[in-house]
C-alpha cells in the first residue's frame, strides 16, 4: 500500500508501543499541569482567598471539621445561622467536599507538612480538575482510543465552562463533583462493557461519593437508568447489562441512603423512581430470557413476552398509584422548574432570583466552549457510526445535557464534559484520517481486506484528494464501474464504505497539510481563548474586586472585607446582622456574626420576613427588626462605584418574595413609576422612596456631591439633591467606596416615645433657637 510520507521501518512493534504509552503518560502529566496552572490566575491576580458566597460556608464547615474532628462536625448545630432558629449543619449538607479536604489536611499534617486549611480549600478545585482530566481520558478511551482520550483530557482541562466553577478558591461542591461524575460514568461504561460486578461496585462507590458531595447526583441517578432503558428498548439487553446495572443500583442506592441529607429519599421520591423502575424491569426481562433459554415453544415465548409487558405496565401504574396515594413524594419544585422554565418565577421566586438559574444566553455557549460548540454535533454524529452501547450513552448524555444547559446557566457545567468528549472524538477522527500515511488504493495494488472493495479499487488516476476526501465519491465511482443495473451491489459497497472497516483515505500531502494546519490553528486559538476567558472573566473572587487605574495598573477594591472586619472588631460577638440572604455566608464566615438568613435558603418565610423589612417603611420595619434582635443591617450599594450587583438591583426580588407571603402588605407594582419603570430618581414612586432599602442606600448620598445633582452610576439616574432621612436606624459604617453600608438599629426611646417623634424633638430643639413657638406647638400636637 502506498504511503503519503515515509515511516521509519526499523522499529520493533514493542518499542513503538512503549514509546507511545510513555508519551501518553507525559502528555497526561502536562495536561494535569496545565489544568492546575490555568486555575491559579485567581491566586496570582488577587490572593489565596475563598471566593463568592457558598464557598465561605463550606470553608467555615471545613474549619470546624479540621479543628474539632469528624463527629463534632457531624453533630454540629449552628445557632448563629438563621437566627433565632439555628441550623442543624450535619444533617443539611452534602459533607463530601468538607470530608475530602479534611482527609487531605490530616494526611498532610501526618506527613509533617503544616499546611493551612485555607490553602487546602483554595487549591482543592484545581487539584481535582487534574483528576477530572484523567477521568475524562479514561472515559473517552473506552469510546474511541487513547488519542481521542488525550484530546478530551486537554479540552476538559482548560475549557472555560468547567473552569468557571473550579478556579482556585472556588471551594464549592462542583469542584469535586465533576470528577466524580466522570469517574462514575467511566466505571458504568466499563462495567457494561466487561459485564463485571467489580466495576459495578466501583461505580456504586463513586456514586455514593457523588451523592455525598453534590445535589446534582440526581443527574447520574437518572442518566444511567435512561441509558439502560434505551438499551433494552433497542433490543440490546444482555447479561452484561443486567450485571452492571443491578450491582450498581443495589449497592449504590443503599449507599446513597447513608448520607443524612438524602435519607430515605431514594425510595420515597419521584426523582429516584426511574432507577427503581428500570431495576425491576431488568429483573423481569432477565428472568424471561432465562426461561426462554430453557423452553423453545413458540406459544410459550409469546405468553412470556405478553406477561413481561403486562408486569411492566402494572409496575409503572403501581408507582404512579403510590405517588397519588402519597407514599412517594411527587417531583419537587426544583425539578419542575427544569421542565417548565416559567414555573420557578411563578411559584418559587427564591430559585428564580438566583442569576445562575436563569436560561443560558447564546453567547455564553461560545464563551464557555468556543470551537467545541461546533465540533460537538460532529462527535455525536460520529457516535452513530459505531453505535456500541457506550456510544448510545454519549448520545443520550448529549441530548439531555444540551437541554439542561439551555434551561439553566449553571447546568452548563454538566454539559461541558460531554461536549469535550464528543469534540475530542470528532477532532481525533479528523486527525486520524488526515495523518494516517496510507494512501487510497490504486488500480495496480489490489485491496487486500475484502473482496467487495476490490471493485472499489478502480478509483483510477482521478483520485484527487478533494474528491476522495468524502465517503460518497469513491462509492459513486464504484457504482459507475459496476453493472449499472445492479443497484444491490452498489448499496452494498456504499454500506461497506460507510462502515468502520473501510475508513476513508486521503491522497497527497497538500490536502493533509491544509486540514491538519487548520485543525492546529483552531486548537491554538482555543488555548488562547481559554486563557483569556479564565484570566479576565472567571478568576474574580467577587469578594475582592479589581478595576484599572488610568495608567492601566490594577486597583483592588476591598470594601467587602473592610466592612466585614469592621463588624468583627467593632460589634458585640452576638450582635445579629440582617442582610439579604446572598451575604449571609460571607457575614458568618468573615465577620463571624449571627445572621438572619443565608444562602442555604431553606426557610422561605424567614427570607420573606427580611424582604418585608427591607421593602416596607421604617415604622413597619422597626418592630420586625426589634423582634428578631437585629442590631445591624448590612446592605450593598453600588451607586457610587458603578457596581451593578448591588441590593437596589436585587430589590425587586425581595419585594416579590415578600409579596409571596404577605400579598396584602407588599405589592410589586407599587414600586414602579406610573409608567411602569423601575426608577430611583425624583420620579420614583412614593412607596419606593419610603422603603427601608431605598433610604439606607441613598442616605447622605447627596452630601458627597456638595450641592450638585447626585448621580447613581449603576442606574444612570439623577437623584434629588435632598436625600432621605432615617429615624429608626443610624449609619454605623460605610466602606471606602460606599460598597457596603452598615446601619445600627436604634434602641427604643428611653422616654417611651416612638423614635420618629423623639428625633423630631431633638431636631426641634435645634430649630427652637430659630423659631421656637411654632415648632413646639406642632410637636405637642403630633405626640
Amino acid at each position, binding site marked *: 500500500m502506498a504511503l503519503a510520507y515515509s515511516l521509519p521501518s526499523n522499529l520493533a512493534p514493542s518499542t513503538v508501543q512503549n514509546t507511545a504509552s510513555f508519551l501518553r503518560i507525559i502528555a497526561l502529566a502536562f495536561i494535569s499541569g496545565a489544568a492546575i496552572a490555568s486555575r491559579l490566575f485567581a491566586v496570582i491576580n488577587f490572593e489565596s482567598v475563598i471566593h463568592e458566597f457558598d464557598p465561605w460556608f463550606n470553608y467555615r464547615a471545613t474549619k470546624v471539621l479540621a479543628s474539632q474532628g469528624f463527629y463534632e462536625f457531624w453533630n454540629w448545630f449552628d445557632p448563629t445561622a438563621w437566627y433565632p432558629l439555628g441550623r442543624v449543619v450535619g444533617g443539611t449538607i452534602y459533607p463530601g467536599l468538607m470530608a475530602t479536604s479534611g482527609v487531605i489536611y490530616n494526611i498532610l499534617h501526618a506527613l509533617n507538612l503544616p499546611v493551612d486549611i485555607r490553602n487546602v480549600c483554595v487549591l482543592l478545585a484545581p487539584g481535582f480538575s487534574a483528576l477530572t482530566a484523567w477521568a475524562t481520558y479514561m472515559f473517552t478511551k473506552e469510546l474511541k482510543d487513547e488519542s481521542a482520550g488525550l484530546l478530551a483530557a486537554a479540552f476538559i482541562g482548560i475549557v472555560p465552562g468547567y473552569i468557571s466553577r473550579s478556579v482556585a478558591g472556588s471551594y464549592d461542591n462542583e469542584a469535586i463533583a465533576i470528577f466524580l461524575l466522570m469517574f462514575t460514568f467511566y466505571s458504568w461504561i466499563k462495567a457494561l462493557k466487561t459485564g463485571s*460486578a467489580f466495576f459495578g461496585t466501583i461505580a456504586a462507590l463513586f456514586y455514593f461519593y457523588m451523592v455525598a458531595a453534590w445535589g446534582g447526583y440526581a443527574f447520574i441517578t437518572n442518566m444511567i437508568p435512561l441509558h439502560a432503558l434505551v438499551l433494552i428498548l433497542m433490543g440490546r439487553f444482555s447479561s452484561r447489562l443486567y450485571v452492571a446495572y443491578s450491582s450498581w443500583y443495589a449497592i449504590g442506592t*443503599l*449507599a446513597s441512603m447513608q448520607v443524612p441529607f438524602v435519607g430515605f429519599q431514594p425510595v420515597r421520591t419521584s426523582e429516584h423512581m426511574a432507577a427503581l423502575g428500570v431495576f425491576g424491569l431488568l429483573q*423481569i426481562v432477565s428472568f424471561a430470557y432465562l426461561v426462554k*433459554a*430453557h423452553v423453545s415453544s413458540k406459544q410459550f415465548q409469546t*405468553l412470556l413476552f405478553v406477561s413481561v409487558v403486562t408486569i411492566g405496565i402494572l409496575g409503572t401504574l403501581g408507582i404512579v398509584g403510590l405517588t397519588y396515594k402519597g407514599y412517594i413524594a411527587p417531583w419537587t419544585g426544583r425539578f419542575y422548574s427544569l421542565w417548565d422554565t416559567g414555573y420557578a418565577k411563578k411559584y418559587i421566586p427564591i430559585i428564580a432570583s438566583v442569576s445562575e438559574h436563569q436560561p443560558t444566553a447564546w453567547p455564553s455557549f461560545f464563551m464557555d466552549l468556543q470551537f467545541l460548540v461546533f465540533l460537538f454535533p460532529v462527535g455525536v454524529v460520529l457516535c452513530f457510526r459505531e453505535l456500541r452501547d457506550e456510544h448510545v450513552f454519549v448520545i443520550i448524555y448529549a441530548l439531555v445535557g444540551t437541554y439542561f444547559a439551555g434551561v439553566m446557566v449553571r447546568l452548563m457545567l454538566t454539559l461541558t464534559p460531554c461536549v469535550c468528549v464528543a469534540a475530542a472524538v470528532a477532532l481525533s477522527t479528523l486527525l486520524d484520517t488526515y495523518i494516517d500515511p496510507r494512501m487510497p488504493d490504486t488500480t495496480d495494488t489490489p485491496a487486500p481486506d475484502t473482496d467487495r472493495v476490490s471493485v472499489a479499487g478502480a478509483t483510477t488516476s482521478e483520485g484527487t484528494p478533494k474528491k476522495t476526501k468524502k465517503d460518497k465519491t469513491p462509492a459513486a465511482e464504484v457504482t459507475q464501474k459496476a453493472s449499472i443495473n445492479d443497484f444491490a451491489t452498489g448499496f452494498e459497497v456504499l454500506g461497506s464504505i460507510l462502515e468502520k472497516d473501510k475508513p476513508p483515505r486521503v491522497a497527497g500531502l497538500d490536502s493533509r497539510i491544509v486540514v491538519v494546519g487548520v485543525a492546529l490553528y483552531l486548537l491554538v486559538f482555543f488555548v488562547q481563548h481559554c486563557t483569556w476567558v479564565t484570566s479576565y472573566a472567571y478568576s474574580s473572587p467577587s469578594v475582592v474586586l479589581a478595576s484599572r487605574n488610568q495608567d492601566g495598573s490594577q486597583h483592588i477594591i476591598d470594601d467587602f472585607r473592610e466592612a466585614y472586619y469592621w463588624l468583627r472588631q467593632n460589634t458585640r460577638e452576638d450582635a445579629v446582622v440582617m442582610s439579604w440572604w446572598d451575604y449571609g455566608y460571607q457575614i458568618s464566615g468573615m465577620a463571624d456574626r449571627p445572621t438572619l438568613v443565608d444562602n442555604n435558603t431553606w426557610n422561605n418565610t424567614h427570607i420573606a420576613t427580611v424582604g418585608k423589612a427591607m421593602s416596607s417603611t421604617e415604622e413597619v420595619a422597626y418592630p420586625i427588626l426589634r423582634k428578631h434582635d437585629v442590631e445591624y443591617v448590612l446592605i450593598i450599594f453600588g451607586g457610587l462605584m458603578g457596581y451593578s450587583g448591588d441590593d437596589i438591583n436585587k430589590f425587586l426580588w425581595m419585594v416579590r418574595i415578600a409579596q409571596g407571603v404577605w400579598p396584602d402588605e407588599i405589592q410589586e407594582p407599587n414600586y414602579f413609576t406610573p409608567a411602569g419603570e423601575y426608577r430611583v430618581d425624583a420620579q420614583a414612586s412614593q412607596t419606593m422612596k419610603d422603603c427601608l432599602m431605598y433610604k439606607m442606600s441613598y442616605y447622605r448620598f447627596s452630601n458627597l456631591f456638595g450641592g450638585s445633582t447626585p448621580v447613581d452610576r449603576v442606574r444612570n439616574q439623577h437623584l434629588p439633591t435632598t436625600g432621605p432621612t432615617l429615624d429608626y436606624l443610624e449609619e454605623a459604617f460605610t466602606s471606602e467606596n460606599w460598597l457596603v453600608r452598615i446601619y445600627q438599629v436604634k434602641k427604643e426611646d428611653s422616654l417611651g416615645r416612638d423614635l420618629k417623634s423623639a428625633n423630631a424633638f431633638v431636631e426641634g430643639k435645634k430649630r427652637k433657637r430659630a423659631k421656637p413657638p411654632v415648632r413646639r406647638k406642632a410637636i405637642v400636637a403630633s405626640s
Partner: protein
Amino acid sequence: MAPQKTATKPQTSAPASPVESLWKAYSDNTSKRLKFIDSFLVFLMLSGIVQFLYCILVTNFPFNAFLAGFSSCVGQFVLTASLRSQVNPENKETFKEVSPERAFADFVVGSIVLHFFVFNFLG
C-alpha cells in the same frame, strides 16, 4: 424481583405442559453448580418476601433497619444472579473478560461492600 417470579407463574400455569417441560428442561440442562446457586437465590427471595410482608402487615417502624435487611436480600440476590449468569457456560460469549474465578472475586468484593453499608444502616 420476588413478586415478579410469583406473578409470572400463575399466568403460565394455565397450560400445564409448558411449565412441566420448563421444569424438565431446567433440571436436565442445568449443572449442579448452577442449581446450588439457584437454591441460594430462592432462599434470598423467600427471605426478602418475609421481610416485605412483615413491613406491610406488622410495622415498618425502624424503617432504616427494614431497608437494610431488605436491601441486603435484594442486593445479595442480584449479585448472586450476576454470578450465576457469569459462570453459566452458555454465556461465555457475553462475558469474554470475566472468567468464573474473576466472577467469584467480583461477587465477594460486591458482597463485602454491600454488607458494609447494610451493617452501617441497621442502626
